[in-house]
C-alpha cells in the first residue's frame, strides 16, 4: 500500500497541519463564495429599506409610471414634498415625542415590575410563589378578551390616558418566566453570604442579582421597548383624542387607509403629495429612533437571546 493509498484509506481525518479546522488558512475560492452569499443576503435585507427611502423621495409622475408601486430610484429630482406634508401641522412630531415618552417610561416600569416579580418567584421559599407562578403561567395561555379589558380600563378611569397604554401590558408573563429562570441559575452561595452579612431581600436584589443580570435585562428591555414602540391597538381602543395618539397609530392611519380614499369618498386630497410617498416618508421617520437606539443594545442582544433558548 502506497502512502497515498494509506492516506485515502484513512480518509479526511489526515491533515497536513496540526491546527484545528477553524484555524485553517482560508481557501480563497471559498472566501469569495462566502462573500458573494453574504453580499446577496445583505442586499436582500437592505433593498426593501432602500425602496422605502427612494419611494419617500419620489414625485408623482415617477410613481404613476411605476404603476403606483414602490420604486428603486426616486426619479430625476428628489422631492421633499412628502416629508413636508407629513411634518406640517405638527401631528407627526408630537406623536413621535409621545411614543418616545411611552416607550421610555413603559420600558423602565415594565423592567422594574418584571424583575421584581421574577425575583420573588425565583426564590423557593417566597410566600405563595407556587400559586402566583401558576397564575402567571395562566396569563400566558389565556388573554382576557377585548371587551372585558375595555370595561376594566374604563372603570379605572384610564380612557384617553397614556397610562392605558402602559398598565394593561406592564408585565409580560413570558418575560417573567425567562427572567425567573435566569435568576434561579445564580449560585445560591451568593444569596447565603449576602444574608449572613445582613443584607435584606431588596439589597440582595439591587446589589447582587440585578448587576449580575445585565444581559437578560437588556434583552427583555428591548422586547418591551419594541413592543411599546409598535403597539397601536391599545391606543386605537383606549385613546380618544387624536392629539394623544402615539406614532404607531398615526402610522397606521396613513398606511392602512390609503387604498380607500377617493373610491369610497371625496375629500380634499387634491394637491397633496402622492399617498405612497407620504406613507414611506412617515415609515422612515418611525424607523429612525429604533435604528438609532439599536446599535447600543446590540452587544447584549446576542448574549441575551441564548438565555431564553437554553434555560427558558
Amino acid at each position, binding site marked *: 500500500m502506497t502512502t497515498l493509498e494509506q492516506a485515502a484509506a484513512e480518509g479526511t481525518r489526515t491533515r497536513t497541519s496540526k491546527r484545528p479546522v477553524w484555524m485553517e488558512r482560508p481557501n480563497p475560492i471559498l472566501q469569495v463564495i462566502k462573500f458573494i452569499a453574504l453580499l446577496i443576503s445583505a442586499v436582500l435585507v437592505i433593498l426593501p429599506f432602500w425602496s422605502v427611502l427612494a419611494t419617500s423621495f419620489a414625485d408623482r409622475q415617477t410613481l404613476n409610471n411605476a404603476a403606483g408601486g414602490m420604486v428603486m430610484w426616486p426619479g430625476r429630482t428628489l422631492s421633499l414634498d412628502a416629508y413636508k406634508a407629513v411634518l406640517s401641522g405638527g*401631528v407627526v412630531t408630537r406623536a413621535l415625542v409621545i411614543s418616545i415618552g411611552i416607550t421610555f417610561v413603559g420600558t423602565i416600569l415594565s423592567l422594574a415590575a418584571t424583575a421584581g416579580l421574577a425575583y420573588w418567584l425565583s426564590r423557593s421559599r417566597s410566600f405563595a410563589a407556587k400559586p402566583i407562578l401558576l397564575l402567571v403561567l395562566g396569563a400566558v395561555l389565556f388573554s382576557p378578551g377585548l371587551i372585558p379589558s375595555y370595561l376594566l380600563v374604563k372603570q379605572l378611569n384610564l380612557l384617553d390616558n397614556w397610562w392605558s397604554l402602559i398598565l394593561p401590558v406592564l408585565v409580560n408573563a413570558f418575560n417573567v418566566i425567562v427572567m425567573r429562570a435566569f435568576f434561579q441559575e445564580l449560585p445560591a452561595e451568593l444569596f447565603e453570604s449576602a444574608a449572613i452579612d445582613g443584607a435584606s431581600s431588596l439589597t440582595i436584589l439591587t446589589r447582587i442579582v440585578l448587576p449580575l443580570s445585565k444581559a437578560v435585562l437588556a434583552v427583555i428591555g428591548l422586547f418591551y421597548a419594541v413592543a411599546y414602540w409598535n403597539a397601536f391597538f391599545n391606543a386605537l381602543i383606549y385613546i380618544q383624542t387624536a392629539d394623544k395618539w402615539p406614532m404607531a397609530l398615526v402610522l397606521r392611519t396613513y398606511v392602512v387607509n390609503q387604498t380607500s380614499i377617493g373610491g369610497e369618498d371625496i375629500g380634499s386630497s387634491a394637491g397633496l403629495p402622492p399617498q405612497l410617498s407620504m406613507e414611506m416618508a412617515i415609515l422612515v421617520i418611525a424607523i429612525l429612533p429604533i435604528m438609532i437606539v439599536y446599535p447600543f443594545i446590540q452587544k447584549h442582544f446576542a448574549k441575551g437571546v441564548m438565555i431564553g433558548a437554553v434555560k427558558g
Partner: protein
Amino acid sequence: MTAEIRNTPVFTRRRLLAGAGGLAAMAGATSLVGCSNGSSSATDNASVNSAVKLPTYVPYTGLKPDLPGTAQGVDNAFRNFPKDNPQSVKEKPGDGSTITGMAIIYYAVPPGPDKNSYWKGLNDRMNVDLQLQMVGNADYATKFPTVIAGNNLPDLTMMQVVANFPSLLDKQFQPLDEFLSGDAIKDYPNLANLPTASWKSTIYNGHIYGIPIPRGLVGGYNFLRADLFEEKGLPTSPKGYDELLRVCKELTDPKQRRWAFSLNTQPANLLAMINDEPNGWRENGGKLTNRYESQEYKQSVNDMITMWKAGVMHPNSFDPAQPFKNLFNAGTAAINAMDGYPGWAQYRSDNSSNPKFKLGLMEVYNRDGSKLAPWHLGSGVFGTGPFTAMKKTSDKNRVKMILRVLNYLAAPFGTEEYLYRLYGAEGVDHKTNSTGDPVLTKTGQANTVIPIRYLADAPYTLYQPGFPKDADVQHDYQATEVPTGIMNPTVGLFSNSAATVNATADKNFNDGVNDIVQGRKPFSDLDGLISTWKSAAGDAMRKEYQDQLQKNGGPK
C-alpha cells in the same frame, strides 16, 4: 423569540366580529341571532317602519346650479364655485356646550382644536366645543363595538350596520321622528334639503334614528382612459357585448403592459348591467330573486370566462389587493368600471402632472346594443357609514341643539357655511384662484380634514375645481344613465343574516365563481355553489327581506 408579540393581547378580526355579535346581548337585546322570524327585533318590521312619515323634502333654492339635478337622482352641478355665498344658517346653532362625536378619517390626523385655527373657527361659528374621536376607516369596525359595549357613546356616532342592529338602536340611540318626521324637519332647512331616498336607510323599529350621509344615487362611474381609446380610435361607449369584447381586445397589449381591466369585479359589474342582472335583488310580486340565482348571472359568468380566456384582464385581476387605481393612473388598465364616482376628483388630482391623461366615462348598452342597459343605482347614502345616530337622552332641548349643529354642517354646496366647512378661512386655509375656485393651502390641507363630513353632509354636488367642463361631462353622463336606473329593492331593509353570516357565504361563493372563470373548476359547479350559498345565507336573507316587503306592500 416571540416575546414582543405577546406583550400586546392579540385580537383577531374574527374574534372582534364575535364581539360585535355579542354586543347587542350586552346592550340588553330582546333576542339574538337565529330568531325564527328572521328579523332580529320584534319591533323592526315593515308595517311599523312604513308607518313613520319620512321628512318632507324641501330643496334649497338659495343658489341656482349651472346644471340642475333631477328628482330621479341626477346631482346638481356647478362649473365654478359660486361667487356669491349666501348664509343658510342665520344664528349660531350651539349653546356653548361640548358635543362629542365619533367618525372615520381617511386622511392624516389633523391637529387638535388648540393648534388648529380651522377647528377653533368652526367651534366659534357654531358656538359649541366639538370633540371628535377620529378612527382610521380600516379600524372603525374594531372600535365601534368596543365603544358600544363599553357603554361609552359619544353624542354623535357614525353608524355601521352590525348584527341585531335594530335592538342596538332601540336600547342606546335616540329616536328622532318627533323632531324630523314630516314637516317637523322644516325647523332644520338644510336637513330638509337631503334627498328623500337617503332617509330610508335611517329607519328602524318604526323610527328615524339619524341623519343620513347622502351620496349620489348613480353610485359608480365607468371610468376610462380616453387618451388610450383615442390612440386606437375605439368607441368609448361600445354598443353591446360583442363590441365591448372587441374594444377590450384592441386595448389589450401585454407587451406594452396594457390590459382593458385590472380587477375582476370591473367586467363583472359591466356585464351585470349588459345582461340585465338584478341590482342585488329583484322584486316580483313580493318575491325576491338574488342576482346569483338569476339566469342572467349565469350568462355573465359565461362571458367572464370568455373575457378571461381572451386575456383582456390583468393577470392579477383576482387579487383583491390589486392597486387598481394606480394601474389606471399608469395606463396599465384602460377601463375602471363601476368605481365610486368621487374617484373623478381623485384621478384628476393624481394625474395633474400628466398632460396626456384624459378621463372619460363609458355608457352601458344592453347585450345586443340596441339601447342603454338598465343602470344599477347605488343606495343614495355613504356605504361605510350610512347615517349618524344620537346617544339616547331625555333632554329635548339638547337634541334640538345637536340637530341645529348638524343642520349647520349639512349646509348645501356654495353656501357660506359650506365654503368654510370644506375650505376653511380665506387666506389661511384656502386661496381663491383666478377662476374663483377655492384652493386649499398647505395649512388648509392639514387642518380641514376633521371628519365632520361623516356626521352630516350636504347632498352630493358635481364640481371639479379648475375643470369647468367636467361638470357638464359628469352631469350629461348622470342624465343619460340615471333615468334607466334600477334600485336594489332591499335598500333600507334590515336582514340579520346579511349582517352576520352572509359575509363568509358570499366570499365562499365568489371564490368558487372565480375558480370557474379561471378554468380551475367546470361551469357545472355553479349550481352547487348557488345552492350552498342559499342554504348558508341566501334563503334566510330572502325570508327576512320578503317578510318586511310583504308587510310593506312593495319596496319602500
